[in-house]
C-alpha cells in the first residue's frame, strides 16, 4: 500500500457510499445531492490517478452544470421535502434490480480485477493532453461541436413545445 493507494481508497469509499445513497434514498432531491458527493469524489479519484485537468472538468461540468440542471429539473417537477414513496418500484422489482446490479458489478470485477497490477502512476500533463486533443483527436472533437449544437437545438425545441402545450392546457382548463 502506497500513499496513493490509501488516498484512492479514502475517496473511492466516499464515492461508492454516496453512489449507493444516491440510488437508494427515497428523498428525490437528496438523490441528486448524493450524486454531487459521488461525482465530486470521483473527481478526487481522477486527481489521485494523476489526471488533473479531467478532474477539474469533472467538477466544473458535472458538479457545476449537470447536477445543477438535474436539481433544477427536480425543483421544476415538484420535489417534495421528505420521503417520497412513489419514486421506487415494487419490492420484487427492486430485488431483481439489485440482483442485476450486483451481477453487473460481479461480472465487471471478475473481468477487470485479474488485469489489475501495481503500476507507476503517470501524471497526464495538460499540455500533452491538449496537443493530442488538437492533433490526433481533432475530428471527433469537431464532431462533438455538431453533437452539442444538435443537443441544444433539440432541447430548446422540446422545451418550447412543452411550454406551448402547457399554455394551451392552461387555456382549456376552466
Amino acid at each position, binding site marked *: 500500500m502506497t500513499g496513493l493507494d490509501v488516498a484512492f481508497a479514502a475517496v473511492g469509499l466516499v464515492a461508492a457510499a454516496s453512489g449507493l445513497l444516491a440510488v437508494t434514498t427515497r428523498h428525490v*432531491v*437528496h438523490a441528486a445531492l448524493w450524486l*454531487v458527493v459521488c461525482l465530486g469524489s470521483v473527481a478526487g479519484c481522477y486527481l489521485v490517478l494523476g489526471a*488533473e485537468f479531467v478532474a477539474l472538468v469533472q*467538477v*466544473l461540468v458535472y*458538479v457545476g452544470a449537470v447536477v445543477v440542471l438535474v436539481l*433544477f429539473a427536480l*425543483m421544476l417537477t415538484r420535489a417534495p*421535502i421528505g420521503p417520497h414513496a412513489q419514486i421506487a418500484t415494487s419490492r420484487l422489482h427492486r430485488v431483481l434490480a439489485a440482483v442485476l446490479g450486483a451481477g453487473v458489478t460481479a461480472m465487471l470485477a471478475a473481468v477487470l480485477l485479474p488485469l489489475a497490477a501495481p503500476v507507476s502512476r503517470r501524471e497526464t500533463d495538460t499540455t500533452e493532453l491538449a496537443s493530442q486533443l488538437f492533433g490526433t483527436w481533432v475530428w471527433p472533437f469537431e464532431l462533438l461541436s455538431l453533437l452539442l449544437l444538435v443537443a441544444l437545438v433539440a432541447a430548446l425545441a422540446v422545451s418550447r413545445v412543452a411550454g406551448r402545450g402547457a399554455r394551451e392546457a392552461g387555456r382549456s382548463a376552466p
Partner: protein
Amino acid sequence: MTALEALEVVLRSVAVLAAFLVLPLLVGQTEHKVMAHMQGRLGPMYAGGFHGWAQLVADGVKFVQKEDITPAAADKGVFRFAPAVALIPYLVAMAVIPLSPDVVAADAPASAVLVLAVTAVGILGTLMAGWASANKYSLLGAMRAAAQLLSYELPLVLSVASVCLAAGSLSLSGIAAAWSPWWLLWQLPGAVVFLVAAVAELQRPPFDMPVADSEIVFGAYTEYTGLRFAFFLLSEYAGIVVMSLLFAVLYLGGWQGPFSDQLGWVWTMLKGFVIAVVVIWLRVSWPRLREDQLQRLAWLVLVPLALAQLALTGVWVVASA
C-alpha cells in the same frame, strides 16, 4: 509523507483559514464606511472605539448568541448543511490564489480552472438553502440565483480562458508572471466582462435579484437565523475577496510593481482592495436590474463580447508567435 510535510500542510491550510476569516471582515468594514460616505453618512462609529473598526467582530459575537431556528417544514439535514456548501468553495479558491510567487498556499498547475470549478460548486449551497427551507420566497430566490449564476458563469469562464490564452498558462502564477502593462488595453473587454460577471456571480447589486428584499424577502436565506445566516454573509464577502484578488492577478498583474521581489504580496492585496472598493462602489451607485434584463445582458452582451475578446486574443497570439 513525513511529519515535516504534514506540518507544512497544516500550517498552509491554517494560514488560508486565517486569511479567510480576516479579509472578508476588512472588505465588510470597508463597505460599511465607503457606502456610508457615498450616501453622506458616517457608518458605524462606536464598536471598538476608532471609527467603529470592530463593528463586524461585534456582529459576529452577536450572531453566535442568536437562536438558531430550523423551520418545522424544512428538510433539516440539507437546511443545516447548506451554509457550509456555500462557504467551502471560496475557502478552496482562496487557497490557490497567489499573492506573490512564494505566497500561495497551493500552487496548482491548473489553478485558473480550479477557481472557476469551485465557484461553480458554490451555486449548490444557495440551491440547497432555497429548496430545503420549504418557503416560497426561498425557492423563488434559489431559482433566480441558480439561473443567474449559471448564466454568468459562462462569461466568467470565457474571459478567464482569454487570459489563459494570452499567457499560455493555466496557472494563476503563470498568468501573473506573463502579464505586461499592454494587457490593460488588450484584455480590457475581457476585464470588463469578468468584473460584471463576477459581481453577478456574487449576487451583489445591481445583480441582487436572488435576494431582492423588496420582492422575495431575502431569497434563499429567508429562513436562516444566527450563525448559519452569518455564514452566508461571510461567504458573500469571501466571494468579493476571491473575485477581487482574482481580477488583480488576472488583469492587473498581481504582484508586478516596484520592489515586487519584497513587496509583491502587498501589491496584489492593494490591487485586489481597489477592485473590492469598485465592487462596493457599483453597489451604492446603481439600482437593481430586472430578472429578464439580467439574462439578456448575459447572453446578448457579455457572451458575445467575451467571445470577441477570445477571438482577438487567439488571432493576436497566433499572429505574433
